[in-house]
C-alpha cells in the first residue's frame, strides 16, 4: 500500500482533477448500484409497490412534479430515479461479470498460448482471429439467438442476464488473450523465468506465480475499457429488444421504453437513464484512458 501511495500512478491521479472526478463518479455509481435497495426510494421490481396512478409524473422541479419522485415516473408509475439505480445495477452487473469472464478465459488462453507456443498457440490464435472477426455485438446477438432457440420458451427471459453475461464475455476474451499472449511471449524469454525453470519449478507455478503478475498491467487497462464497452453493448442489446426484459429493466431497456415517449413530451423517461448511461460509460472510459497512459512508461 505504501508502495502504491508512493507510486507515480497515485501522484498522477492526484494531480488530475478530471480523472479524480471520473473516479469519484464511477465509485459513486458503483456504490449506489450496489446499495440500490438501500438507497432507492422505491423498489421498481416490486410490482406490488407500483401504482399505475402515479404514472408519468414529471421531474420534481417541473410543473406537476412531486418531490416524492425526483426524476418523475415512467408509464407504469415507477420512480425514474429508482429505476435508474436498479438499472445501473443490472448494467454494471452484466458489465462486470462479462468482463471478468472474458478476463478469465482470455488470460488463461493467452498464458497457455504464449507460454506453450507451438501448435497449441497457433490453434488458439487462429480461433482468436476468427472470434475477432465477429464483433461483440454480433456474437452477443448470435448467442442470444441460439439460446432463444435452445432454451424452452420462457426460460430465456429468466436467464436473460446470464445469457447477456456469457454472450458479451465470450465476445470479449480475444482482446485479453492477444495482449496476454504478447506479453507472455516477451516475459517467457526473460531471465527471471529461465531462473525459475532452472530451479525446477513446474510450468503451472511459473506461469501463475511469475508470469501472470507481470502481464496483468495491460489486462487491467483493457478490462476498464471493456467494462465501458460491455455496458454499452448490454444497453444496445436491450435496446434492440434482445436484452433484459422490461420488468427488470437495465439502463438500455429504460432508454428503449422511454424512447416511445420522446415525442409526447415525457422526455424524462428516456433522458435521465440516457444521461446516467453516458455519464457512467464516460467516467469509466476516462479512467481507462488515463490508466492506459499512466501505465505506459513510454508516454510519460
Amino acid at each position: 500500500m505504501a508502495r502504491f501511495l508512493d507510486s507515480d500512478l497515485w501522484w498522477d491521479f492526484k494531480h488530475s482533477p478530471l480523472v479524480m472526478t471520473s473516479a469519484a463518479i464511477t465509485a459513486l455509481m458503483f456504490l449506489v448500484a450496489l446499495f440500490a435497495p438501500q438507497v432507492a426510494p422505491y423498489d421498481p421490481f416490486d410490482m406490488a409497490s407500483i401504482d399505475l396512478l402515479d404514472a408519468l409524473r414529471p421531474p420534481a422541479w417541473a410543473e406537476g412534479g412531486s418531490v416524492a419522485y425526483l426524476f418523475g415516473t415512467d408509464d407504469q408509475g415507477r420512480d425514474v430515479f429508482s429505476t435508474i439505480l436498479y438499472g445501473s445495477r443490472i448494467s454494471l452487473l452484466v458489465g462486470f461479470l462479462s468482463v471478468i469472464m472474458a478476463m478469465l478465459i482470455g488470460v488463461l488462453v493467452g498464458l497457455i498460448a504464449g507460454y506453450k507456443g507451438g501448435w497449441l498457440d497457433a490453434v488458439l490464435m487462429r480461433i482468436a482471429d476468427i472470434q475477432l472477426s465477429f464483433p461483440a455485438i454480433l456474437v452477443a446477438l448470435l448467442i442470444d439467438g441460439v439460446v432463444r432457440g435452445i432454451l424452452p420458451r420462457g426460460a430465456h427471459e429468466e436467464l436473460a442476464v446470464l445469457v447477456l453475461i456469457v454472450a458479451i464475455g465470450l465476445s470479449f476474451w480475444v482482446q485479453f488473450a492477444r495482449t496476454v499472449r504478447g506479453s507472455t511471449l516477451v516475459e517467457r524469454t526473460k531471465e527471471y523465468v529461465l531462473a525459475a525453470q532452472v530451479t525446477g519449478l513446474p510450468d503451472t507455478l511459473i506461469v501463475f506465480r511469475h508470469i501472470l503478475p507481470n502481464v496483468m498491467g495491460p489486462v487491467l487497462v483493457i478490462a476498464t475499457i471493456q467494462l465501458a464497452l460491455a455496458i454499452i453493448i448490454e444497453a444496445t442489446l436491450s435496446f434492440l429488444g434482445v436484452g433484459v426484459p422490461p420488468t427488470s429493466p437495465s439502463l438500455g431497456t429504460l432508454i428503449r421504453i422511454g424512447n416511445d415517449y420522446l415525442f409526447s413530451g415525457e422526455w424524462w423517461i428516456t433522458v435521465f437513464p440516457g444521461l446516467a448511461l453516458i455519464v457512467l460509460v464516460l467516467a469509466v472510459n476516462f479512467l481507462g484512458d488515463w490508466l492506459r497512459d499512466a501505465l505506459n512508461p513510454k508516454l510519460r
Partner: protein
Amino acid sequence: MESMASNMQNTVEQNAGASPSTPLLDIRGLTVEFPGRRGNLVAARDVSLALAKGEILGVVGESGAGKSTIANAVIGLLDPPGRMASGEVYLAGRRIDALRLPAMRAIRGRRIGMIFQDPLTSLDPLQTIEAQLLETITAHLGMTESAAQRRAVELLDAVGIPEPSARIKQYPHQFSGGMRQRAVIALSLCAQPEVLLADEPTTALDVSIQSQILDLMRQLVRERALGMLIITHDIGVISEIADRVAVMYCGAVVETGATAQVLARPAHAYTKSLIAAIPRPDRKTARFRLVQQHATVESTARRLDVKTHWLGQRRSFDGDGDGDGDGDSGVDSSNASNAALVELENLCMRFTTVPSVFKSRRRYLDAVDDVSFSIRRGEVFGLVGESGSGKSTIGRLICGIHAPHAGRIRFAGVPLDARGSRRALNRLRRQMQMVFQDPFSSLNGRMRVRDIVAEPIRFHRMAEGAQLRAIVLDLLDYVGLGGAAAPRFPHEFSGGQRQRISIARALATRPRFLVCDEPTSALDVSIQAQILNLLKDLQQELGLTMLFISHDLPVIRQMCDRVGVMKSGRLREVNDTETLFTAPRHEYTRHLLDLMPKLDILSGDGGDGDNPN
C-alpha cells in the same frame, strides 16, 4: 523535442568571425535538468567541453552519468521534459543553443552530424537507404536529384559498403547490423558536417565490426578534418580512437586531458577506480582492485563460516542415497579434483527459425553443433566467442532449459535426460544454478527480494519457517546486501545490487555447479569488478564448479582456469587460460585476441592490487 530552442530568446550573435583559435564546438557551463515530480533531476551539471577541428574527444563515464544528455543538448534534441537550465553552446564561435527551430534545423545534419547508439533502430524501416540519404542531401545541399544520387552512392562507398549502387536500393532490414551502422554514419555525414557527435556508436556491434567501424571513423575524421565527440563507457574504445578524453561522473566532468595521460595517470578518484576496475587483458590478477570510496558495498559483505553454516552444510552430492543424507561438510573431497563434474558429448541443438507446415520450407539453425568438453570439479571453465556463437545455449542445455537435439550431458556421472525419474532429475537440478546476464530482467519485479531468494529453498523443501527466514537473511548478508533488502522489491535496487540478489538466489539451493551467463556485461566496469570479485570469493569458499560465459576476453582471463572458444556453434579450441592467451592454437582464437583492445597505456597500478580484505 525542440524544447531548448523555445526557452532561450536571446539569440546573441557574438564572436561572429571565428578566429582560428576558437574551438569548433564549445560547450560552456552546460546544465541540463529533467523536471519530474520528485524535483529536478540534474543530468548534466556545469559541463564545459571544447572540441577542435580534426580532434576526437572521447567522453567516458558510467551509465547515467549524463553523456548522452550532453550530445542531445548540443543538437537541441533533449527528450522532454529535459531543458537546458544554463550554459551556452558555440559552434565555430557562433552561439547556437538559443536558435529558433528553423535555424537549428539548418544546423542539424548540415553542420553537426549525430550518430545514435542503436543502428538497428535509427533507420526508418519503411524507406530505402537511398530515399533516406536523398532527402537529407537535398534538404541541406540543394543538389539536383541525380547529383544527390551520385553523392549518396559515393558516401556508401566511402563508409565501406560493398556494391553501393545496388545496396542503396535496399531497405534497412536487408542490411546487417554493421552495415546499418555504416549507413547511419553515411547519413550523418552526407551533408558534410563539421562536427560529428557519436553516441556509443559501437555498443551493439560485434568486436570485429566494432574495430572496423572505429577505423572508419578515425579515417573520416582525419580525411575531412571533422571534430568528433565520441561517447562511450568502453575505455578500450577510447584508448583506440580518442585524442583527448573527458571523464564524467554524476553529471559533471571530473577530469579532462589527453587520452594517454588520463588513462595512465588518472588524477580524480573516480577515474582511478574506474581504471583500476578494468580487467587486464595482459595478465591475470588475483582480485580486482577497488578504490575504497566507490566500493562501499563490498565492505558490508558479511563473511559466513561456510564450514558450519547451512550454506556449507551437507554439501555432499555424490553417492546414491538422497543428497541431503550424510553430514559431510565443505568442499567435497571424495573424488580426485580433476575428475569431471559436467561432461558434454557431441551435443547438438537445432532451432527452427522459419516454421512451416511444409518440411521443405522450414529453416533451421544449428546453434550448438557437435560440442564435447568436460568441466572438472572445482574449476571455472570459460566459454568465449562472438555473439550468437551458441555460448548461452550450451549453458541452458546443461541447466535443462532446452532439451538437446542430439548428444548427451552427464552431471556427476549421471546422464541428464528425461529417462531418469523426475525426482532424480530434480535432485540433480538442485545442484546447478544459473546467474544471468541482465540484472533487470532476471528478477521478477512483482516479488519481494526475500521471496525471490526463498523460492528455490521452499520449492525443494530444504527449509521452512524461521529457519528459512534466517537462511535468506544470511544469504543476503553473504552477497553483501544486508537483511534490509529482504522486504523490498527489485526495482528499488541498482544493477549491481540486483546481480547480487541473483547470486543469492542461485546460492539458495546450495548448488555445486553454477552457470554464469555473461553476469556482468550489463554493468559498468566498476560494478563489474565488485561482482566478479564476489563470484571469485564464493567459488573458492564454497568450492563451486563454474561455467563462465562471456565474450569479454579480459574478463575471461581474470576468471577462468580453462577456456573454450566457440564460433558458429562449434567449439574451436579448449585450453588452459594462460596457454590460450599466450599461445593460441586455433586461427580464430588468434583473430579474437588481435581484436582485443590492448590498453597498454593503462596506469601501472591497475595490476595486482592488494586485497582490501
